């Protein structure tokens, strides 16, 4: 399950940046055409963060759809998976743009009084 490696990378990067401060929330952007499953990330996140300053923090996943253009009707459409069709019924689509994001956007750390 590659989501474990992906989660380890996210947690390593956040721990480094947080420098020991308790983390409340981590926001990541995952493109809809990227082969990473949100459910598996959440599952791994709980395992990987246990015993760290990220334990109990929330993982927020923002899905970014890929964009493409239908070669039949000309509409610009969002792609939610690699086998998406245009609402007009056509699957004759241009190569998707974007949707392959896999990025740690930000995190929130607890404010110290």
């Amino acid at each position: 399950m590659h989501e474990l490696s992906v989660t380890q990378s996210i947690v390593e990067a956040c721990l480094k940046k947080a420098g020991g401060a308790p983390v409340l929330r981590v926001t990541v952007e995952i493109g809809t055409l990227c082969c990473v499953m949100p459910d598996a990330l959440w599952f791994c996140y709980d395992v990987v963060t246990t015993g760290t300053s990220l334990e109990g923090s929330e993982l927020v996943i923002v899905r970014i759809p890929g964009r493409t253009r239908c070669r039949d009707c000309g509409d610009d459409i969002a792609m939610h998976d690699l086998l998406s069709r245009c609402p007009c019924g056509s699957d004759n689509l241009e190569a998707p743009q974007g949707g392959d994001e896999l990025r740690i956007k930000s995190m929130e750390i607890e404010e110290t009084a």
Partner: protein
Amino acid sequence: MCTTCGCSKHAHAWVTDLATGKVTAIVEPVDHDHARIDHRHTHPTHHHAHPHDHSDSPAHDHSPNRPHTSGTTIDLEQEVLAKNNRLAERNRGWLEGRNILALNLVSSPGAGKTQLLERTIHDLQNSVPISVVEGDQETVFDAERIGATGCRVVQVNTGTGCHLDASMLARALTALNPPRDSLVMVENVGNLVCPALFDLGEQAKVAILSVTEGTDKPLKYPHMFRASSLMVVNKIDLLPYVDFDLDACIAFARKVNPDIDVIPLSATRGDGLDRWYAWLNARLTALFETAS
């Protein structure tokens, strides 16, 4: 995996050099220690909401049972796979500097990667030096098969891991020490999902699919076929005995990747191997001409 926190600190892959028997562990550096901090959050039961929001705006998924408490926001804007991608670029430069063509062979277990390699080494090793990196969770069986051809080979065992990553290939290349102006074949762990995401620094991924696996496989595992430059359809000698539609399979692969090359072949009987060798030779020639 480490049972304290789930990190990879105590998990490792290892490289076995078949010629010397030397085994080297690959331990990933981990940045955090295991000091427990003051826990302000209990570990809640997880009922994550993940609405299948098909609006055009980015969906924002988070668990409903965790209230939005505010803290200080720190922007990271960092690629999750930045570390792997940096190492992959380093591998790519290392290979280019030595004028080496490296291919990443990916497939389900049992599609015939090792068989295709054995045959390729047998037929081409007098025209170009070939060496092999074998990836499997456990055992050196495949490396022994490749070693029996007289080819230089190292085995990477990933343990619980389901894919090779760039740091594993870096270690393997150090152990393998392939000659300049040569071909390095990397046989990834048999898995049509995870290896799609991890750049190793190879020049191209080659997806191998066998006719016993089903016509619709490129649609069922689209990420791998999208990431690959070539689809080899192996075991075509079995076409009379299985329900496999070669034309439909190729159409499915081109649906997810319009640019993918396709070569149907039989690694055991030899049909189609000439096209596979021509594909390899074209890439080798292009590489060697660029360097000269």
